[in-house]
């Protein structure tokens, strides 16, 4: 083509980024890698190829991690951990700072290698991924520096295992490694099978930052290696980012092991466009939402909800914009969409779209290169029932439907099993700030999309997983309290005497569901005796249907979350006041149930109610210092419906210690009281009845913990489940919770001093809340 021709056609032409340096680095390693264990590469074992998806050519052979490899890595990490944790915060900060600098100094090498291994455009790896990686290490250098003074009562978990996906290989490494190391843990990271190379480059360079050997270990391999890492007994925490089905398996596999767990899973994130939005900007946002990294992004705005009145115009504009997208060589500096990560993924996307029989499919009228590429696609006219409206495609495919009103937009947006991110476009701040808190998502972007920063928590609700990455909230997922705990023996009910002592008028303890006393569905009761053989009363034996009814009642009371914190505080104070008025009676009841004086427990219960009445309007969110002109609000939102199996050993205080933080934060609850001493709880509902507490906020179902745990933890409409029961049901609860990936908080048969400082405070408030980050860029 002559210059004259180009002058007339004004084509862009090729603008390739050089890959010479990357090829040189691969050649140094003879295009063959072992694992990175204990500060050195191991000899390559059985290998598999990692390919450039844009060309199909093999970049290098990497080693399939075996059980023996993992043993070696865990041993190295375990050996290195005490010394790493023993460094001062400042010493760890210096090394994290050096890692940040290294990433910056070698930024282009990382970017080019990432693009070659993953297929994403060089613009994305160069301008987004790698800068975010450096930022993450800088930020966590700061957290390491401040950790000892800010959280003197916390300690590292030990050895962490991380399993990360192929869509942001180096960024996900940073999200796992930076907080783990800042907190004093050591780590074994398993990169994705398709994209292991930037992790190996990072490890290779990490020595130059002075990272002690064994602190960071990389074991490559496929899903089997990942599963073996998850199952390894020498691991204290698993951090996983990936698909929801795999996350569910990990939840099941780790159930009852005591391993800490955070999961960042899939999504079908709504992208809501109101009719007063800047439509052209909303369309540009969609380019960043669903065609960023070919839509292979867990938080991709993949579900377009557009207000009916502007829908036709919006779709028309969108199609025109799609036609202008340039697909091509990911190393080209002038393309918008690169390659799909692997032919397997391409086949998945293709078959999902081909199976879609409703709606209207529009494929961008742009040149599609031969090979592992999929055209930007829009499917309009779908309904909520369409498969593609519900299932994550993980490709450059946007599905769309319309809504009429703001409340319908919220309903449609929340009509999903997922809850990772959401985007809202409107020029009306009243509308934006009204909608954002109502969306079931861990992250909400207003008039922007896919904004990330180390200071702002990222993570999901519902089946998008639990835990946050970034910010102090992210660091806490790599820490545990410095507590010496004892094992918790199972409490035994006092036996039925040969001749029970019967006193006074028979009183019937019932269940408490939806503000009403209810007989147990099964029609069975159990006698409760004092240590001396006095018949204290009968307690209903709740069953799965009672749990079901209680969950319904808890949902019917969802208005509680919208009540003001002041109002919730008032009610907690009032409950304390009414309990205080009957303190003597409750003290006597506890003495009868336990054989020990109950006055101290009643007094502690009153104090605890005061504690959470106090906290109700003081567990503040934050405004995060993110690098945009705008604010990122971290709002502490209630989890929703919390089920709790209460401690047996402190029949009143234990129940109140779980109930009060939950309802103070706006949750509604299903409480299963002490199995052996339930009558303090059933007396307590009389207090609740007279304390202005709305019906359904607290529901009490008595009965055997081992039986009630399963329907409660397995209920798909419960958002969190806690157990502090002395019955060993932690494994059961965690396993059943996998069904909808609800958050769990379990005791693993370890005791907790309900009378002491560990019986209350921030850990309870954190368990009762989810951090939602709302990004609001501004400027006129």
């Amino acid at each position, binding site marked *: *083509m*002559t*210059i*004259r*021709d*180009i*002058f007339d056609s*004004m*084509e*862009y*032409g*090729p*603008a390739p980024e050089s890959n010479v340096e990357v090829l040189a680095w691969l050649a140094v390693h003879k295009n063959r890698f072992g694992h990175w264990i204990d500060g050195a590469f191991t000899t390559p074992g059985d290998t598999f190829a990692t390919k450039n998806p844009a060309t199909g050519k093999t970049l290098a052979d990497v080693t399939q991690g075996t059980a023996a490899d993992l043993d070696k890595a865990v041993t190295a990490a375990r050996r290195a951990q005490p010394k790493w944790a023993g460094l001062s915060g400042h010493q760890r900060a210096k090394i994290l700072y050096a890692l940040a600098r290294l990433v910056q100094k070698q930024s282009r090498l990382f970017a080019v290698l990432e693009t070659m291994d993953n297929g994403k455009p060089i*613009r994305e790896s*160069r*301008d987004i991924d790698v800068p975010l990686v450096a930022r993450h290490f800088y930020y966590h250098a700061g957290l390491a520096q401040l950790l000892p003074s800010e959280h003197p009562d916390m300690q590292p978990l030990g050895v962490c295992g991380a399993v990360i996906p192929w869509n942001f290989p180096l960024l996900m490494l940073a999200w796992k490694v930076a907080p783990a190391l800042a907190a004093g843990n050591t780590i074994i990271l398993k990169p994705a099978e398709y994209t292991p190379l930037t992790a190996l480059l990072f490890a290779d360079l990490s020595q130059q930052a002075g990272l002690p050997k064994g602190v960071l270990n990389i074991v490559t391999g496929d899903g089997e290696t990942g599963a073996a890492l998850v199952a390894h007994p020498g691991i204290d925490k698993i951090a996983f980012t990936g698909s929801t089905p795999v996350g569910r398996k990990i939840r099941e596999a780790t159930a009852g092991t005591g391993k800490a767990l955070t999961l960042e899973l899939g999504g079908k994130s709504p992208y809501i466009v109101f009719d*007063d*939005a*800047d*439509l*052209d*900007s*909303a369309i*540009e*946002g969609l380019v960043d939402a669903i065609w960023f990294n070919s839509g292979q992004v867990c938080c991709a705005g993949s579900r377009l909800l557009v207000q009916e009145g502007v829908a036709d115009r919006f779709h028309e504009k969108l199609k025109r914009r799609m036609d*202008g997208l340039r697909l091509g060589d990911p190393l080209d*500096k*002038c393309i*918008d969409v690169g390659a799909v990560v692997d032919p397997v993924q391409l086949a998945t996307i293709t078959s999902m779209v081909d199976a879609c029989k409703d709606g209207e499919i529009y494929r961008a009228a742009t040149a599609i290169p031969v090979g592992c590429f999929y055209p930007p696609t829009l499917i309009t006219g779908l309904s909520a029932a369409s498969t593609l409206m519900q299932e994550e495609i993980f490709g450059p495919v946007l599905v769309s439907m319309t809504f009429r009103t703001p409340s319908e937009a919220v309903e449609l947006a929340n009509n999903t099993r997922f809850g990772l991110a959401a985007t809202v476009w409107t*020029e009306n701040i009243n509308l934006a700030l009204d909608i954002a808190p109502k969306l079931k998502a861990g992250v909400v972007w207003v*008039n*922007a999309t896919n904004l990330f920063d180390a200071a702002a928590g990222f993570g999901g609700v519902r089946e998008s997983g639990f835990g946050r990455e970034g910010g102090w909230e992210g660091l806490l997922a790599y820490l545990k309290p410095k507590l010496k705990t004892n094992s918790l023996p199972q409490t035994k009910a006092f036996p039925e005497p040969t001749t029970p002592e019967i006193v006074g008028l028979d009183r019937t303890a019932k269940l408490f569901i939806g503000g009403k006393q209810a007989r147990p569905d099964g029609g069975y009761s159990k006698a409760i005796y004092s240590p001396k053989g006095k018949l204290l009363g009968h307690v209903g034996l709740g069953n799965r249907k009672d749990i079901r009814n209680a969950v319904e009642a808890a949902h019917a009371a969802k208005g509680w979350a919208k009540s003001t914190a002041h109002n919730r505080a008032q009610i907690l104070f009032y409950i304390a006041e009414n309990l205080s008025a009957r303190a003597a009676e409750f003290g006597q009841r506890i003495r009868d149930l336990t054989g020990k004086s109950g006055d101290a427990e009643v007094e502690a219960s009153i104090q605890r109610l005061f504690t959470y009445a106090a906290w109700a309007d003081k567990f503040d969110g934050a405004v995060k210092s993110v690098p*945009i*002109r*705008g604010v990122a609000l971290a709002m502490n939102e209630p989890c929703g419906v919390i089920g709790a199996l209460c401690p047996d050993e402190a029949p009143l205080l234990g129940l109140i210690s779980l109930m009060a933080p939950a309802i103070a934060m706006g949750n509604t609850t299903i409480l299963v009281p002490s199995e052996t001493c339930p009558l303090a709880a059933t007396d307590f509902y009389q207090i609740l009845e007279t304390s202005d507490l709305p019906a359904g906020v607290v529901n009490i179902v008595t009965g055997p913990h081992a039986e009630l745990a399963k329907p409660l933890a397995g209920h798909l409409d419960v958002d969190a489940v806690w157990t502090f029961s002395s019955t060993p049901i932690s494994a059961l609860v965690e396993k059943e919770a996998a069904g909808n990936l609800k958050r769990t908080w379990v005791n693993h048969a370890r005791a907790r001093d309900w009378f002491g400082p560990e019986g209350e405070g921030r850990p309870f408030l954190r368990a009762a809340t989810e951090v939602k980050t709302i990004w609001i*860029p*501004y*400027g*006129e």
Partner: protein
Amino acid sequence: MQTLTVPAKTQLQLAHARNPGMVLDLDWVASVQANTSAIERRATTLGGRRSVKKEFQAAWLLKAVSMIDLTTLSGDDTAGRVRRLCAKARQPVAQSMLDQLGMPSLTTGAVCVYHEMVETAVRALEGTNIPVAAVSTGFPAGLSPYHLRIAEIGESVKSGAKEIDIVISRRHVLTQNWQALYDETREMRAACGDAHMKAILATGELGTLRNVARASLVCMMGGADFIKTSTGKETVNATLPVTLTMIRCIREYQDRTGIKVGYKPAGGISKAKDSLLYLALMKDELGHPWLQPDLFRFGASSLLGDIERQLEHYLTGRYSAANRHAMG
């Protein structure tokens, strides 16, 4: 959409119909939105998304030259100064370089001067197709008596200006008096006759991008052939966010009326690299027709010098010096 008929005899060869304007549609004006943060984000990331290299870059830079309104708007302009500028417009790049590039005849898009210099410029450009553009209507503030502003247009047209760069009354935008802005634009357009009218919004003085968008629309409804960012005299002149805002309005106007309106960023574009970004933005947002001088111009004076240096670099592989290229 109802359009008004305006006699459209034109001397310039156009690939499209002139904008006849339309009835003022206040509902449309009120519905326009412009989200500043989002527009800035798009503008900021553009440089990372588009890159033109080697012979493509050379061709694009030559294209940029062909769309420059080579401008002098100084109080100390003289006939001699204007003749020198016109000579540069005829021969913007050294002939030897143009020959090597295979583009032997290339001129700038126009020469842009004050009214007093129009005749000099017209004479200096005789024998070429380079039009003379006159800034008008009390440029740059637009606050001289209204009848004189209208009369000024007629004087410049009489002197041979083929293009008239009018300035709008910013106060009408700042007080949201769209009717007044529309009436003024229509009357100025009528005064232009066959000469093409570029409406200068002085975006740096309009306060918000929303105002920029609304003023853009009203000027197009009033019959502007081009909308132009700035006089070059405001503290902030052409920027990418302002450009994005204005060209999205041009697209919207075309969608509703079928009429293509031109765009001219002016002031502050002095680097070859910046000119490539503007061209990429026009290509991506509006398409190929806006890569021709009848729909796109750069209002610039020092841009050409940087382009010449980049072209020499392309030809020789060596970075160039300003003194190697003829002054305008």
